[in-house]
């Protein structure tokens, strides 16, 4: 047996059989942020055979306090590319599958189908409910982790006959109910703790060691150093999901068209384009594309009069998130507009035209 894994193989309750199980297993990690990175680093180090990486965000400066796999030089790079490079260097024997997109209704079943276990390392409710429903449909267990300030939650959902996320929280909270890390903040070390616990549960699930955290929600309070475990039961109706919902994100009634920064740049070089930059005036002042008109997201109510609505209109922000939201806002009132999001935003553009 591989000397590399000797220290875990020598554990009486682990042994060579468990190591083989890890090597044969395929784990999808959705989200390459604070939770997903420690999960991946440990599963990769411990010898999980196939790891799926899924994210379409780029690394931003304010990610670095908690997403410790990334370095300063990675700011502006795609997370998928930066994480893959580092994980490959960490373990050359692992098979990596890269999914260069977010998990959405239209790809969820196809992506998840090819894995044994899913790790929910996302940062928003719509994707968490989508993962839940897709895993129930495909009969896959998933390891849940989520954060709020100094607090973290962990559980294993849909493990055999065990309960699902909807058994604990039947209804998806609306947008304004519960803030996310962007709005509420998170202490840098917290996702490290919770992600590492998710990695542990993943390994237990694969190898059959110990007692899987199924039917229990583990709540960690970092300020009190207190773990609370809450037991809950399966509601049989939640195990009977047969198809995905029409929509998960309440604003996600339409697909937002997007273009890669590279393709956008080549269009810019060929023709005169219409472009709205929805960042704040300060951000815009710092650096912007010359053809861009600045309308901050919170001031964007309608299109400027001089824009030709029969032609394509590009929308850009710093990372591609606010511009996506801007497009959804505009589409609500004017569904026929030809709007296109610049993926990766100015962060990506700065790497293309330094």
């Amino acid at each position, binding site marked *: 047996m591989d000397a590399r894994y000797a220290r875990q193989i020598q554990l009486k309750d682990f042994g060579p059989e468990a190591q083989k199980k890890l090597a044969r297993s395929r784990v999808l990690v959705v989200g390459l942020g604070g939770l997903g990175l420690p999960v991946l680093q440990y599963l990769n180090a411990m010898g999980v055979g196939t790891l799926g990486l899924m994210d379409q965000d780029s690394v931003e400066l304010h990610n670095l306090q908690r997403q410790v796999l990334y370095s300063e030089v990675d700011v502006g790079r795609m997370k998928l590319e930066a994480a893959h490079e580092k994980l490959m260097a960490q373990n050359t024997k692992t098979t990596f599958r890269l999914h260069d997109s977010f998990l959405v209704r239209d790809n969820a079943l196809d992506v998840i189908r090819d894995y044994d276990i899913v790790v929910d390392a996302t*940062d928003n409710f719509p994707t968490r409910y989508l993962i839940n429903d897709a895993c129930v449909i495909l009969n896959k267990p998933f390891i849940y982790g989520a954060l*709020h300030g100094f*607090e973290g939650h962990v559980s294993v959902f849909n493990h055999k006959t065990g309960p699902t996320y909807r058994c604990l929280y039947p209804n998806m909270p609306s947008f304004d109910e519960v803030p996310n890390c962007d709005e509420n903040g998170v202490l840098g070390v917290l996702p490290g703790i919770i992600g590492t616990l998710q990695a542990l549960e993943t390994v237990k699930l694969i190898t059959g060691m110990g007692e899987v955290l199924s039917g229990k929600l583990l709540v960690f309070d970092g300020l009190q150093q207190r773990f609370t475990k809450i037991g809950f039961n399966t509601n049989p109706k939640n195990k009977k999901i047969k198809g995905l919902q029409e929509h998960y994100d309440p604003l996600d009634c339409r697909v937002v068209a997007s273009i890669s920064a590279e393709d956008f740049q080549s269009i810019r070089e060929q023709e005169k384009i219409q472009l709205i930059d929805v960042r704040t005036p300060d951000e815009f002042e710092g650096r912007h594309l010359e053809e861009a008109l600045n309308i901050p997201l919170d001031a964007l109510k309608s299109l400027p009069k001089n824009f030709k609505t029969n032609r394509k209109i590009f929308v850009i922000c710093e990372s591609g998130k606010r511009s996506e939201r801007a497009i959804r806002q505009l589409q609500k009132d004017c569904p026929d507009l030809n709007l296109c999001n610049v993926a990766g935003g100015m962060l990506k553009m700065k790497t293309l035209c330094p």
Partner: protein
Amino acid sequence: MTILLFGITKDIVGSPTLSFPTSSVSGKRMPNTVKELKVYLGKTYPELNKLSSLAVAVNNAYADDDHIINSYDEIALIPPVSGG
């Protein structure tokens, strides 16, 4: 009765725990079920009423709305959290 608060409920109430004096001390009728407790808390903290999914645990087990509660129970409000 002690109530442990997690996630957004802790932020709404502004404290990690709430204590109720028992009815023999306060003279007020105490909530008897999880549902009554939610209504009771919702009057003092209206923002709690906005939460569409709020798990309530009684003595470390998830409890439905009609679950009977006693003054010596330890209760926890655990709303969903989304950060990652």
